[in-house]
């Protein structure tokens, strides 16, 4: 499921299971590329929760995570940060990281 976070509900959204958090900007081109990949992940791997954080709409959360470049991607496993990547290169690299978080 893809959910849009607010500054208020962020912690609630990342506390269970495997969660991919995407700090994104509305006009950022790589963010749009990642958005399509996240939709595909949501369709094919519905047991992965996806949380999107618009950096303009969630300034407190973005500041707390020191988001300087977008997309800024956090992978959570059972409430803990399991991996962190800044930027989106290609789908394969992203999927490799997701596989690592899910199954290692």
């Amino acid at each position, binding site marked *: 499921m893809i959910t849009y976070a607010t500054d208020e509900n962020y912690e609630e959204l990342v506390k269970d299971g495997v969660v991919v958090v995407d700090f994104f900007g509305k006009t950022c081109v790589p963010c749009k590329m990642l958005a*399509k990949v996240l*939709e*595909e992940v*949501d*369709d*094919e*791997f*519905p*047991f992965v929760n996806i949380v999107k954080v618009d950096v303009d709409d969630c300034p407190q959360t973005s500041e707390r995570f*020191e988001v*300087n470049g977008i997309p800024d991607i956090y992978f959570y496993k059972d409430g803990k940060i399991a991996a962190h990547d*800044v930027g989106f290169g290609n789908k394969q690299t992203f*999927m490799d990281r*997701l*596989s690592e978080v*899910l*199954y290692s």
Partner: protein
Amino acid sequence: MKSRINHLVDYRTVPFERTVTVECTPDYMEGQLRHLTRNFKKTQAVKTLEKGDVAVLSLQSTAEKFNRSSVYVTVGGGLFDTELESQLAGHAVGETFTATSAGTPVTVTVKSAMRTTFPEPTDEMVAAYAAEHEEFAGVNTVAAYKEKVRADRLTELRTSAMYDRLQAVMDYVLTHSDFDFDEEEVAERKAAYYEEVKAMLAESGKTLEELTADEMLQNFGISTPEDLEREITKQVEWSIAEDLWLVSLFGKTGEEMETYPWKFLDDYIRGEMKYIEK
């Protein structure tokens, strides 16, 4: 410029593949149609596994990776274990069977299975999608959506093929030519480059000296200051070589030119290429 060209390869003599086949594949089209229909998708429990289903499995094996009481796997999704996933289709919920991965037997029990289905796209879905995506403004039917997806995909593939060749021709010219780099000029450009790097890092409150190996890797794709020094030298020499090439053709460096300096190369490659649309 103080650096000099000893020998410059003529870009028109560089060999490259001029004919390219571009295709909007059925898989690509299916993926794009899903963007239309994904808001209407449905998930339901199923009894027998097919590719794309999500299975909850219990695995037993001597290999740690395959010793799990409950694991979610998308059949054929490729994220867990490609070999094991390829043996799941056709098995039923409740069934226990032996699969293998890299020669290791794995006892698999299918605990449950879910399937997501997507409806056939409709003109109404297209209109709703177009209302939210300005690049699809005016696209109101499934047929028009497919045509736009196909046209956009072919344009993307043509552009990508052209860009690949542009890069390859530039690389060929610069690596097969011979330049005499002036030490002072290289040092000046390197200093300017380091200033840019420092300014970029300062934005996030960091300095080059205090970066950890991980931070260097994240910022530059390189993990030691020595490697960074080598990479910057390489990039600076490359930029000087590019400028020498431009000066030899137009009497100006890239920065001094008012328009996109590599337009001549774009135009040349575009003129040489032939596309076969499938």
